[in-house]
């Protein structure tokens, strides 16, 4: 199958104040095929957004790649110059964000902003924009409206129109529905699925709601402290989670409990990247921790369709 995105052993580090190196992402291995959807799941501070920003090459100035490569449609983008990146963004990879109102310019109409996103020369930009607005489920008059006249769901649809008008092969959606009502969110999810079908789009969907991820994506990568701790197809993850972190994330869903019960939560907090715990980064919060978890970092173990980093499924130690 055609690989749209392939991330191999990606590592990203942060240059600290005293020039020290703080490792953010370590050994990220992801691949997304054509028309495929992959969801990145994890708490805030687990590295989901940084992974997405790496693919867009939008990392902040004090972060840099220290190993690995990112192949977009077969070519490595980690070394591209700003000018080449401009060609890539929008036409190969696009991104939408959690808060559309923060990314739309309040002084231009929605139509102007979508037209602005069109790349290259084209005779009938307005016609194309109007058609595309219809395709994302907006009425024609939205073209002439300003962002403040649109609801959150409509703004997100304008963002989607801007992201997809150049027909990219990959869309990164960073919590696109978190700020929306359930019914509006449902509409956006359906729209994205629709776009995947129609345009052969691949989607990386970032969310902290594992139930939503399972519903949207065929495969799920669970991230914790800058590593992928479990990668599998969504049914396997939801019905039979292997990693203790995944298990606990699922047990945090309130709909799995009766009224008056207590939700089984995850003890403690997401660790700070500046001082990650030694051994397995999850060990201080893990109910199944063993001695080896404190000493060694677990490597990847393959169990059926699932790749998991946990000593419960094998004594694989990560190579330094």
């Amino acid at each position, binding site marked *: 199958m055609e690989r749209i995105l392939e991330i191999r052993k990606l590592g990203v580090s942060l240059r600290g104040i005293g020039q020290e190196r703080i490792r953010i992402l370590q050994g990220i291995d992801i691949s997304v095929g054509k028309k495929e959807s992959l969801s990145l799941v994890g708490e805030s501070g687990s590295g989901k957004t940084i992974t997405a920003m790496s693919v867009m090459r939008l990392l902040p100035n004090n972060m840099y790649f220290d190993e690995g490569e990112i192949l977009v449609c077969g070519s490595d983008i980690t070394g591209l110059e700003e000018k080449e990146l401009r060609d890539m963004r929008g036409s190969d990879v696009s991104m939408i964000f959690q808060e559309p109102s923060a990314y739309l310019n309040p002084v231009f109409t929605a139509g102007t902003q979508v037209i602005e996103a069109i790349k290259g020369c084209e005779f009938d930009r307005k016609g194309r924009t109007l058609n595309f607005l219809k395709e994302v489920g907006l009425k024609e008059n939205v073209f002439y409206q300003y962002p403040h006249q649109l609801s959150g769901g409509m703004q997100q649809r304008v963002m989607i129109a801007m992201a997809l008008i150049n027909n990219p092969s990959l869309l990164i959606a960073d919590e696109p529905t978190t700020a929306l009502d*359930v*019914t509006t969110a449902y509409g956006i*999810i359906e729209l994205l699925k629709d776009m995947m079908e129609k345009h052969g789009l691949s989607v990386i969907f970032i969310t902290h709601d594992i139930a939503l991820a399972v519903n949207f994506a065929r495969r799920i990568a669970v991230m914790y402290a800058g590593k992928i701790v479990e990668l599998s197809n969504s049914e396997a993850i939801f019905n039979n989670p292997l990693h203790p972190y995944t298990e606990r994330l699922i047990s*945090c869903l*309130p709909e799995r409990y009766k009224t008056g019960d207590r939700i089984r939560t995850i003890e403690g*907090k997401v660790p700070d990247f500046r001082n990650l715990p030694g051994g397995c980064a999850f060990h201080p919060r893990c109910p199944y921790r063993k001695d080896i978890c404190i000493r060694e970092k677990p490597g990847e173990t393959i169990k059926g369709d699932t790749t998991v980093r946990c000593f419960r499924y094998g004594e694989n130690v990560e190579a330094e």
Partner: protein
Amino acid sequence: MERMWKLSNLSKRYFIRSATGLEEISAIDTLDMEIFKGDAFGVIGESGSGKTTLGKTIIRLVEPTSGEIHFWEKKITGMKENEFVKLRRNFQIIFQDPYKALNPRMSVGSAVMEGIGEDAGKSQKKERAGQLLEMVGIAAGRFNDFPHQFSGGERQRVAIARALSTSPSFIVCDEPTSNLDLSIQAKILNLFVELKERLELTYLFISHNIRIVEFISNRVAVMYGGRILEYGDTAKVIKNPMHPYTRMLVAASFFRKTEVERIYQAGRKGCSFVQLCPHRREICKEERPVFMPVEENHFVACFANNSLATSKGGVL
């Protein structure tokens, strides 16, 4: 069960300026409701359905346009301000965004101390505030820290401690977890359940997420266009939704296909959901349906479900 709140014919109308002059918006439209002691009464609906206005009106943060509110047997609408002030300690509200609800220039300890009764001395207040922070899971050592030193979940805990400082019996929770991660949301929900049992609180829990309301509340009302369309025991309403709108909300919350898409305006005449409803008939445009029992403790206001229901007959 003792009835704590009784709202009858409650309305709140806002006037907004538009191109054609003043436009009237009904945020709450002749609404009747009862809340019993010990309830965690859930209100679900989308943005613009009037659920936040309801939460604010019930504790008179917003004055209702018409209608009556009874707290226990006391009528609090039209009550003189100096009389109402004494009652007000009984009600509290927790907002969605803890970043905006706390004063950034006030340490969390003094923010919590503010609400503790006048008769307590300073050291007593300090001790009590420490206890409250401890109760919501904030270490007493962080008494002098400022809001920016806390994470989102911790700030919401501080907001809860501050709400508890007046020893309220009734708390309006206005989407208190929708800004939080799922794992932190789970902890805050646990805290709400715990506090309710420990302090015998009554909640009005406002949310757009059925998955949360299903967990936290024993009774639920579905709001649309300022009116309640369906109410009853949470389990019954969610397992057996009768109103087309409730069905749509439940379906969307559990990622199932829905019959209709949303719009914003609700009609004043007839059923508020009439413009979107796939089952609408002539009568829905003309008359407002009244509540009819579906089963025990489960009521719906919809003509499609009960052909006998008219605005003249039927029981509430």
